[in-house]
């Protein structure tokens, strides 16, 4: 056990702490810090803050609304809506930016349909695009809590004669305070560190990640890139602190009663309308790039064709797809094992090093991909793994480990605390209890962890763009490359390919889960 703890701590030291420390040590040079005094930096800061703040409000409110609709109204097809609302997570953020142009740009489909004369470039575009990819995680965070809320306080309130709106304000909102805060900070950190959407529809609005991209990739000025990366770390670190503090105070509640929702015409109508509007808003852009990917030449010739598939594969989509699948599988397997081991130690073994491990793995949540990627490039260049699949696997592993870790942590914390103690008194070792009892008991969580790694490896751009070679390049990077070669239809098709891959992965995992559950209920 002690050896395992040391090995894991060493892993985080080498893969997280050292690269970041190495990168930020460049800030010691006052010349590097000069960027903080420039007007471009100041305006990028303001832009980033404005965009992230607005998007956070919109995403979290929409997430709250949809959670309410799915948990507190009697509409039909809730599980379908719940799935559809998370689909935008399955495509790269860049694709959202592109699809907004197809849909709402000056010559966009909807723009022409409605004879609109708006311009989405700039703040509106960034906010809309950021909403698309930040809504699903915010929704999941709130929905997962609201779904398990106990109904008895509401029944007590009904008996006491407390009106429904007041119940919402004084029971529901306080109950959701922590998840709302967590979701708000997570959304904020997610939006403020993304460069995919602003690059596509940012107009003249430069945000911090774009500035970092311009400096590191455009001007080859890694020092300035590192300096901006440091600033990008700040909101994420605040998010992390808030989250950790809020999480630790969370009380473990047990459900005693679910809500029995009697039909209510007005409330359910509101529910349907809201669910349909939000779902359409999220899916229309995705539908658009699916359409573009099968157009002969968008927008001049919309005749459907499969030619873009052939072209995309000629341009290497096939081998990049294999690269992505390979990376995603290896990361999902190694990552799940690693996150589970760490969670086992922090949730069930304890001790000082466990607290350190918890901190280390949650900290990775705070490191933006673009920062992580650059720090890896600077730290590992010239090492054995540089330019190989190994570094891509490592960077994805580190980039995405926090959430699966927390999933495992929460689920392992819920499993009976005394199992290992019983094992010890019965003469059964810890490892056996893990394999024979804990793993089966948390199998659903393990599947979820695997899925999380997989999907994110398929869509990520920020962390890998500095690190991949032309041989091990993942598919998502092809989206920008094809766009830069004026092959927008092929580029849209690559997004579709990523989407389809992720959908298949989700379906397979869901099928395996269902199979397991039916097996269990048969034996019952």
């Amino acid at each position, binding site marked *: 056990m002690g050896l395992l703890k040391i090995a894991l701590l060493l892993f985080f030291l080498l893969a997280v702490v050292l690269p970041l420390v190495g990168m930020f040590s460049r800030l010691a040079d006052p010349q590097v810090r000069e960027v903080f005094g420039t007007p471009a930096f100041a305006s990028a800061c303001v832009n980033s803050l404005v965009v992230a703040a607005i998007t956070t409000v919109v995403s979290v409110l929409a997430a709250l609304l949809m959670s309410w609709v799915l948990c507190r109204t009697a509409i039909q097809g809730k599980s379908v809506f719940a799935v559809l609302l998370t689909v935008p997570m399955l495509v790269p953020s860049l694709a959202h930016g592109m699809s907004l142009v197809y849909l709402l740009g000056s010559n966009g489909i909807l723009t022409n349909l409605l004879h609109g004369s708006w311009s989405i470039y700039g703040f509106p575009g960034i906010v809309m695009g950021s909403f698309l990819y930040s809504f699903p995680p915010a929704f999941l965070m709130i929905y997962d809590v609201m779904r398990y809320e106990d109904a008895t306080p509401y029944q007590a309130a009904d008996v006491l004669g407390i009106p429904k709106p007041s119940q919402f304000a004084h029971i529901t909102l306080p109950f959701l305070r922590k998840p709302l805060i967590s979701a708000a900070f997570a959304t904020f950190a997610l939006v403020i560190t993304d460069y995919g959407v602003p690059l596509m529809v940012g107009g003249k609005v430069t945000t911090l990640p774009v500035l970092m991209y311009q400096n590191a*990739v455009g001007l080859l000025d890694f020092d300035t890139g590192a300096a901006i990366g440091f600033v990008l770390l700040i909101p994420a670190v605040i998010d992390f602190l808030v989250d950790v503090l809020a999480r630790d105070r969370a009380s473990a509640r047990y459900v005693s009663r679910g809500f029995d929702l009697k039909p209510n015409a007005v409330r359910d109508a509101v529910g349907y309308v809201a669910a349909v509007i939000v779902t359409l808003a999220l899916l229309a852009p995705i539908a658009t790039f699916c359409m573009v990917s099968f157009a002969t030449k968008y927008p001049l010739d919309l005749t459907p064709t499969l030619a873009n598939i052939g072209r995309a594969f000629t341009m290497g989509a096939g081998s990049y797809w294999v690269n992505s699948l390979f990376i995603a599988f290896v990361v999902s397997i190694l990552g799940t094992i690693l996150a589970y081991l760490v969670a086992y130690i922090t949730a069930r073994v304890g001790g000082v090093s466990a607290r350190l491990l918890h901190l280390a793995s949650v900290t990775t949540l705070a490191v933006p991909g673009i920062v992580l990627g650059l720090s890896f490039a600077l730290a590992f260049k010239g090492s054995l793994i540089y330019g190989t699949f190994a570094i891509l696997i490592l960077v994805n592993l580190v980039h995405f480990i926090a959430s699966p870790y927390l999933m495992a942590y929460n689920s392992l914390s819920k499993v009976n605390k005394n199992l290992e103690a019983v094992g010890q008194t019965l003469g059964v070792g810890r490892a056996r209890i893990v394999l024979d009892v804990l793993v089966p008991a948390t199998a659903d969580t393990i599947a979820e962890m695997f899925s999380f790694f997989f999907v994110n490896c398929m869509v990520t751009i920020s962390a890998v763009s500095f690190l991949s070679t032309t041989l091990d390049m993942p598919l998502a990077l092809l989206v920008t490359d094809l766009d830069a070669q004026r092959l927008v239809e092929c580029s849209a098709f690559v997004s579709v390919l990523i989407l389809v891959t992720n959908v298949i992965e989700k379906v397979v995992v869901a099928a395996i889960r269902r199979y397991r559950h039916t097996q269990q209920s048969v034996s019952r």
Partner: protein
Amino acid sequence: IGLGALAGAGGTSSNSVVIYSCCEGIRNETQMTALRQAFPNYDIRMHYITTGNCAARLRMEGASSEADIVLDFEGGYINQVSDSLEVLSDFDESMYCEDLLDPDDRYFPFSRESACIATNDNILSERGIPTPTSYQDLLDPVYAGVVSMPNPKTSGTGYNFLKSLVNAWGEDAAFDYFDALAENVYQFTSSGSGPVNALVQGEAAVGLGMTYHAVSEINEGAPLSVHFFEEGSPWDVYGSGIIQGRAGRQAVHDVFGWLCTEGVRIDNATYVPDQVLVGVSPEIPNYPKDVKYADMTGITDVDEKMRLLERWSH
């Protein structure tokens, strides 16, 4: 953790050659088809890479790069990483136009890529916007929100426009101009192909982009036309070079030798007809002839580029 074992399959056997090309896909394909015919025994792999990424990689990795050869790499960027390139003393440079040559012989010209003001004529007429005839025209409020330009910070094409006007009008006048133009630009795109993409999609009515991009779209039926103003067409040399330490390999030597002769000829005749080779000026349908080039003195000067971009605020 045995991640090291998963190292990529990037083993370099003696007859393999890896080329990083900043050319578009179709140009690469043409080169590859001809290369395979010329060198059936060599294992040649060519990969598209965006200019910025290529530069960032070479800056970071230097001589340990996976690539052996870089192809069609923008002059400003190639100078920024020229430390990582071999001095090309073995090859003959007399065939190239003199104004394209690198005094340090770190690269040979591959293409002369020139830029234009392209317009989507459907959009212009729909909105009743006149076709611009000068840079000053573009400051007219009728162009508000319909102009697209690549960002000089991330795109060589963008920088070409900036540099050409700095040379023509002096630095202050040029920057004043772009500050005013920014009022009408709806987006500074990160890649050089962004404006032409936007024109094709009908997002922009006027785009500052590559001539050959616009012409290839015209030849595919897009309602675009190309225009040049009196300051002349901004242009730049795009070069090829060998990564430090690779020139000794016969395969690399052969392939590079082919690329900077036959390769240039083919590309010049098929895609980018601006003159590269002495006495060779091919024609391509719809490609404007007798283009007046802008004065691009100092376009490959790295320090100058850094100084000017420092001042660029968009």
